[in-house]
C-alpha cells in the first residue's frame, strides 16, 4: 500500500468532484480489513507500526473524500492551490451581506416562538445553497476553471460553518 499516492487513486476512484459514495465506502472497508493493525497482532513491531500508518492514512483519505467541502478543497490542493490561506478572504459583497443576514437570524433564533420550525427552514435553505454551490464547483472544476472553483469552495465553507452552528443550536435547544 503506497501512502504517498493521492486519496482518489488509493480507492481506485477517478480524480473528480463526483464520487460514487457506495464504491468509496466499500473500498474503504475492504482496505481497512486488509491493513488494520488487528491483522498484524502477532507480527513484529515494525509491521504493526506500518499498519497504524496505513490505516491512519486511509481514515484521513476517507474523511476527505466523504465530505463535498473537504473533497473540493483537496482537489484544489492537488492543483497546487491553497483555498484556505488566511490572506484569501476576498468575497463578493452580495454574498457577504447574505451571510450577515443569515447569521443575524441565527442569533435571534433561540428567542423565536417556534425555534425548531425556523431551524428547519434555515436548514433546507442552507442545503439548497450548498447543493447549488457543489454543482457550480463540479462544473468549474470539470472545465479546469480553478479560480472560479476556488471562489465557490470558499463560499461553500461559509455555508458549512453556518450549518454547524445551526446544528449546535439545535442540540442546545434539545436539552
Amino acid at each position: 500500500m503506497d501512502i504517498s499516492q493521492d486519496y482518489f487513486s488509493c480507492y481506485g476512484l477517478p480524480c473528480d468532484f463526483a464520487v460514487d459514495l457506495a464504491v468509496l465506502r466499500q473500498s474503504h472497508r475492504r482496505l481497512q480489513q486488509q491493513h488494520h493493525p488487528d491483522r498484524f497482532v502477532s507480527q513484529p513491531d515494525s509491521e504493526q507500526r506500518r499498519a497504524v500508518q496505513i490505516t491512519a492514512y486511509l481514515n484521513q483519505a476517507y474523511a476527505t473524500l466523504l465530505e463535498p467541502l473537504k473533497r473540493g478543497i483537496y482537489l484544489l490542493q492537488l492543483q497546487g492551490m491553497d483555498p484556505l490561506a488566511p490572506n484569501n478572504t476576498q468575497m463578493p459583497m452580495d454574498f457577504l451581506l447574505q451571510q450577515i443576514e443569515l447569521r443575524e437570524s441565527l442569533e435571534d433564533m433561540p428567542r423565536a416562538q417556534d425555534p425548531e420550525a425556523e431551524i428547519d427552514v434555515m436548514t433546507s435553505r442552507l442545503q439548497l445553497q450548498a447543493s447549488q454551490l457543489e454543482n457550480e464547483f463540479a462544473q468549474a472544476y470539470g472545465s479546469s476553471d480553478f479560480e472560479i472553483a476556488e471562489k465557490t469552495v470558499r463560499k461553500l465553507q461559509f455555508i458549512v460553518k453556518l450549518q454547524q452552528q445551526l446544528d449546535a443550536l439545535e442540540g442546545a435547544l434539545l436539552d
Partner: protein
Amino acid sequence: MALLQIAEPGQSAKPHQRKLAVGIDLGTTHSLVASVRSGQAETLPNSRGEHLLPSVVRYLADELPQVGVKAQAHLVDDAANTVMSVKRLMGRGIEDVKRLGENMPYLFEACDQGMPLINTVSGLKSPVQVSADILRALVQRGESSLGGELVGAVITVPAYFDDAQRQATKDAAQLAGIQVLRLLNEPTAAAVAYGLEQDQQEHGTIAVFDLGGGTFDISILRMEQGVFEVLATGGDSALGGDDFDHALAEWMHQERQIPAKLDLAQQRFLLRLARAGKELLSDLQSTQLSFEGWPGTEAYADLELTREQMNLLLDPIIGKAIRATKRTLRDAKVTPDDVARIVMVGGSTRSLRVQERVAELFQQQPLTDIDPDRVVALGAARQADVLAGNQSGEELLLLDVLPLSLGLETMGGLVERVIDRNTPIPVARAQEFTTYQDGQTAMSIHVLQGERELVQDCRSLSRFELRGIPAMTAGAAKIRVTFQVDADGLLEVSARELTSGVAASVQVKPSYGLSDVQIADMIKASWTNVEDDRSARSLREQQVEADRLVEAVTMALAEDGERLLTSQEQQAIVNQMEQLVLARNGQDHHAIAKQIEVMAKASDAYAAMRMDDSIKRALAGKSVDQL
C-alpha cells in the same frame, strides 16, 4: 524409526492447534473472563461455579493477596487493606482521588509518577498493581479452565476512557504478564457478543445502551460485512441504577414522614427496601414494602408501591439517559428510525421501565437475550479468538473512534484542537505552529484532552520541549506537531522544526487521567458554555494582541525613541500604552480592542518614521549602482 517431535515449551506442537485467548471485562464492581470453546463464547466460572469475580483485592502482611469473594468478606473488618472499585483510580492523579476520597477508607500517598499509592500492610500499591492482581486471578482461571497457556487477552475499557486510563489498563496487563491483543471499547464488545455480523444480509446501525450502577454510556455503531464502525459515543458518568434506588428511598422517606436525619443503618435499610421493591415489580404490578426490622424506635406501616408509582419516580432519571441518547444519535448523524438493533448492557437495563422507554424512543424492542452483566466479556472473547488467529475468511473487524478531542496549548491559555472527538482511529494529524517572539529558540508543547476552549478546563496529558530552534524573527519558524493515535486509542506526539529539522517526540504517558465525572462535565460544559468560551476566547485573543503591541512599542522606544521623537511625543505614546495595559488587565474584550486601535493610531506616525529611518540608514553611504 520416526523421530518424536518435541516442541519448545510454550510453543504449540501443531501449528494448526487452536490458540488459547480470552476476553476480560475488567469492571468497577466485578470482573469476568470468557473464551470461545467449540464455536461458542462463554464466561468461565471458578471451581465453585461462580462467574463474576468481585473486583476486590485484600493485601496481607506475609501472604499473597486475596482476590474476589474472599477479599470482599473483609471490606468492613479490614477496610484499609481491602481495595475495591480500583477502576475509578486508574490513570488518575492525587487531586482526582482526593475528590473521590470521602468514600474510600484507604491511606493514599502521593507519588512522582502521578497516580496515588495505597498504603497497605504489604507495602505501597498503585492502582495499576491492584488491577494487575485482579487480572492475574482471571488469567489463572482462564488457564486452568482451558488447560494451557494463553497467547493473550482482549481487555475491555469504557468508551469514554481517556489516554491515561487506557495506558494504565495496558500497564496493568503488562505487569500481570498478559499479552494485550487489543484494548476494546465495552459497547463495541457488547455488539460483537450478539454476533450480528454473522448473517451476511445483516447490516445497519446499532445502538448500545449501557446503564450500570453509576454510569450511563451510549454508543452508535455501524455494522456492514463484518466491520463494526463506532460512529459516536456519549453518556453521563453520574447516572445509573443507584439513582433509581435513591429516588425510591427518598419517596419512602417522604411517604412515611420519617424524620429528615437518618443514620447510616437507616439509609441502608431504605436502599435495601428500594432494591427489593424494584426487583419484585419486574413480575408484579404492585408490592407491599415492609418496615419490619427498621433500625430505630419508631414503627412504620407497610407501604404499597405500584408499578405506576415507581415509573413516575424513575422516569426523570431515565429521561436523562434518553436525552443523552438523542444527543449521541445527532453526533452520529442518524435518527432513531435508522437504528436496526439496540443492545442492552449493564444490570440496570433489567428494569422493565428502562426497556419500555428505550423501545418507545426507537419504536422497537431492544435485544435482551444475553445476560447484560456478561455481554461485554462474551464479545471480548469473540474478538480475542479472531485476533489469536483462530478464525479465517470473512473476519470480524472493529473500528473505533477517539472519545475526547486532542489539542495543544497556544498563546493566552487557549486550546487549538488537533483531532476532534469521534474521529476514527488509528489517526495521524499534523498542525503547524510558529514562534511568538523574535529569537525564540525553544517551544514548550503542552498536549491536552477535552472539549473546552481554555487550557484550564481541559485535561493536561503531557508537556515536552522542542529545543534548538534556530533564532529567527517571530513567526518565521515552522513547527509541525504530529499526533498519532493507535488502534487501542493510545497517543504519541512528535514535534519538528521544518526549516532546521530539529525534532522531539514523546510517547504520551500521562501522569494522571480524567475523572469520569470530569469527562461528563467537560463534554456537557462544552455545550452549555459555548457562549462563555467564546467571550473568554475573544478576551484572551485581545490580551495576546495587546501584549504583542506593548512589547513591540516598548522595544522600539528603547531602541530609537530618544533619537526620533520629542519627549512630548514619547510621553503621549507611553500614556496610551498605560491605558492599554489597564484595559488588558480588565475583563472586557471590547475595551481592549478599542484601546488597541487608539494605541495603534498613536504609534502609527512613529512606525512610519522608524521605517524611513531604517531605509535611510540602509542606503547611507551607498551609491545608486551599488543597490
